[in-house]
């Protein structure tokens, strides 16, 4: 589970690190991805595992479009820039939730049968649910892929450079907007991947994003805003903390542990564990 | 007469980097003292130590006969240290007059008096016509002046000016120089940090040159500019920058 949190959070961290914008609609991106995965299954009987790349690709386009249509303008705001960004993405989140309620109804849905759903695997006597395991695997692969992408390809380096100094980058002829749009796309694609996998073992409903979004913010902050590696490590920590809390406290309190750890960490290190900025 | 400000053997280290080593300077009442030196000489660090942004690693700072080494900036302001910032830090969403009122509130608890004081200071600094303009709408030279006005409103005994004359056009700099003189004539001691010697030398009574975190030379401006050590430090600096 922690690895999936990490995957959700990495997308958020990427966007944040790239341009100092917190996407408060991140949870809704996840929700859309889960619905997409659900409908692909319901109408075309494509298993979520197969449709995951499709969903990720769709989310990539979605994220880039959102950037070009909305966020680009929010970043230009002269007054209250921080507030404008927060509330633009917040408003977007509310609209998306509303649209989901309108078109998909507030009913809880789930994917009843899939290759992985409900199966468990036994490793050395410990039963592990398969979907989560695959999720963890995909997360690790995605993270490794991302790492290589950022550090080994020209475009990845362009992203890093833009993040460090947007002004200088413009001088070398890199189009800032293209890089940012790509960053948003990538961030959305990552959360799309996570959504597709989670669709297998989570109920899907319009508000589903909200519950994960807060955990994602905590994860990102825990790792230190903008640090992709930090977000991933943060995700693992969050997953562990959640598991430990579940042993000690009643299940309804399991998130308290995560939140408490977040508060503890930022009070001791106001910039998160791996924060560099 | 005792000095208004004294630093005694002040050290400041940032990790392994020594920004100030054993700096002892003093500023007498009613003086205009220039603190100059090449880039990276430790001027800004010393300035911030005096303003109370951070406490020195070692040494003490005496202001007006009181040891203020461990007092935070706000407390020093109450004791009579006013400052400006090298990179201007106006309250952008507030009007010019409101900016100055914030400063005036240190000595005036009644709003009406604080407001009157603020108007007085705007008059003094030549910003009166711009009182109701948002600080964000000022031109850079005016923002500099607003910084000075805000600090003056706290009725300081010592005014710390951090590169207020740098980056201004010659005419603007002239008005700035006139303002600094006016401030001194009002009985306020001035300590100003400047990078460019040409601007400050005619203005100051005494110059202190820092280099590599230490006091290099101290004395009358005319003597200081001719001092071979100073020339070397500045030229060396230029070469270093050019390289």
């Amino acid at each position, binding site marked *: 589970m922690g690895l999936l949190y990490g995957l959700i959070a990495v997308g958020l961290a990427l966007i944040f690190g790239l341009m100092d914008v917190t996407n408060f609609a991140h949870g809704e991106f996840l929700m859309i991805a889960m619905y997409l995965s659900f409908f692909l299954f319901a109408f075309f009987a494509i298993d979520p595992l197969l449709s995951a790349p499709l969903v990720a690709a769709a989310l990539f386009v979605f994220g880039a479009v959102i950037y070009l249509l909305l966020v680009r303008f929010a970043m230009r705001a002269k007054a209250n820039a921080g507030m404008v960004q927060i*509330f633009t993405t917040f408003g977007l989140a509310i609209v998306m939730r509303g649209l989901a309620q309108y078109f998909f109804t507030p009913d809880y849905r789930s994917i009843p049968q899939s290759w992985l759903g409900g199966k468990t695997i036994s490793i050395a006597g410990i039963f592990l649910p398969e979907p989560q395991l695959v999720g963890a695997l995909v997360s690790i692969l995605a993270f490794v892929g991302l790492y290589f992408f950022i550090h080994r390809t020209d475009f990845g380096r362009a992203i890093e450079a833009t993040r460090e100094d947007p002004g200088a980058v413009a001088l070398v002829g890199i189009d800032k907007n293209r890089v940012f749009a790509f960053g948003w796309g990538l961030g959305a694609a990552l959360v799309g991947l996570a959504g597709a996998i989670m669709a297998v073992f989570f109920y899907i409903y319009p508000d589903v994003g909200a519950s994960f979004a807060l955990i994602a913010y905590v994860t990102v902050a825990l790792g230190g805003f903008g640090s992709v590696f930090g977000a991933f490590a943060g995700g693992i920590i969050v997953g562990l903390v959640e598991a430990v809390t579940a042993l000690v406290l009643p299940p309804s309190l399991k998130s308290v542990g995560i939140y408490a750890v977040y508060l503890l960490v930022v009070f001791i290190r106001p910039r998160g564990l791996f924060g560099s900025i | 007469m005792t000095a208004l400000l004294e630093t005694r053997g002040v050290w400041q280290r940032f990790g392994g980097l020594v920004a100030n080593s054993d700096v002892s300077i003093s500023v007498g009442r009613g003086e205009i003292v220039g603190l100059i030196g090449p880039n990276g000489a430790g001027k800004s660090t010393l300035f911030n130590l005096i303003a109370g942004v951070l406490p020195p690693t070692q040494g003490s700072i005496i202001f007006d006969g009181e040891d203020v080494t461990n007092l935070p900036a706000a407390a020093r302001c109450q004791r009579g240290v006013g*400052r400006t910032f090298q990179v201007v830090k106006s309250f952008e969403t507030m009007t010019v007059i409101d900016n100055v009122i*914030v400063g005036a509130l240190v000595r005036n608890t009644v709003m009406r008096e604080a407001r009157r004081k603020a*108007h007085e200071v705007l008059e003094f600094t030549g910003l009166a016509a711009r009182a109701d303009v948002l600080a964000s*709408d000022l031109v850079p030279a005016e923002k500099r002046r607003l910084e000075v006005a805000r600090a003056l409103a*706290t009725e300081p005994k010592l005014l710390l000016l951090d590169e207020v004359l740098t980056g201004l056009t010659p005419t603007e700099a002239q008005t700035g120089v006139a303002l600094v003189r006016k401030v001194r004539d009002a009985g306020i001691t001035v300590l100003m940090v400047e990078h460019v010697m040409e601007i400050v030398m005619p203005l100051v009574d005494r110059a202190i040159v820092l280099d590599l975190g230490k006091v290099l030379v101290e004395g009358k401006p005319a003597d200081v500019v001719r001092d071979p050590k100073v020339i070397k430090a500045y030229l060396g600096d230029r070469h270093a920058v050019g390289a």
Partner: protein
Amino acid sequence: MDKDFAARRRRDLIIAAVLAAIAALTPLFVKDVVVQNIMILTLMYAGLSQSWNILSGYCGQISLGHALYFGLGAYTTELLFTKFGVLPWFGMLAGGAVSALIAMGLGYPFFRLRGHYFVIATIVIAEIGLLLFHNWEWAGAAMGITIPIRGDSWLKFQFLRTKLPYFYFALALCCLAWFVTWWLENSKWGFWWRAVKDNPEAAESLGVDVFNSKMGAAAVSAFLVAVGGSFYAQFVSYIDPESVMGFQFSLLMALPAVLGGIGTLWGPVLGAAILIPLTELTRFKFGGSGRGVDLIVYGTLIVLISLALPRGLLSLFSRPKKTGAAR
């Protein structure tokens, strides 16, 4: 210039008095219960948003966790009432005091945080509060507390046959929050807060006690919001964790101010006057829970306003004095 300023202050006060008087008279003409209900909620959110605005707008510490104080106000009042028979009037003050104290206690660690870290911390702490109340048996846990109905009484602040007393209380709350803002705006605190918001370092150099400024703003803000929470509990006469401490309250406190103009005297009132009726009407019109149209309208509005008018609707009315360079 001083005269201008004094005149502006007086004009604000007169406009407020006139508006309040008009509002006070509306129930004479508006008898429809649904509409009255909307008016009560509008006034309540105007007051709440005004209170939120003190900490987040003036002092610049964006809190998205004010639902905590709202809920604390509601719970303190009702727990005192149902368990100890303390009258809601006193419970209201107690709730305010508890909230203000907790806000200050939280301030110690919280105000060291900056930007996003602070915002997320406020969301998180409200969420923790919510979860704790969910699991607190003595306080009714997830079942909540039903306020025993004992008939109309000013003493118990409970009215069954008419909503008018609630209406007037909401109006009074809104006026109080507005007046407190008006009063503080031209005080040392008001100036300190705005200075802290714009540039804490510069504020410090001008003798501003940055930390205590934030503490003061948090305490006033939390107190007023908690009083609003107490009122709401009496008004709906049933509370559970979600219905008084849910995240939506944090949002509904922030949005009117953002919409109308954050950090301004009139922004929250204007924002609430537009936003709340609009939300309630779309909800009423498109009916039922969860067709989502209300959310769509609402979200679109927020996005559009944020993008088109970053200083809020109020900026349409004020003529900014942009004369450019003077010399």
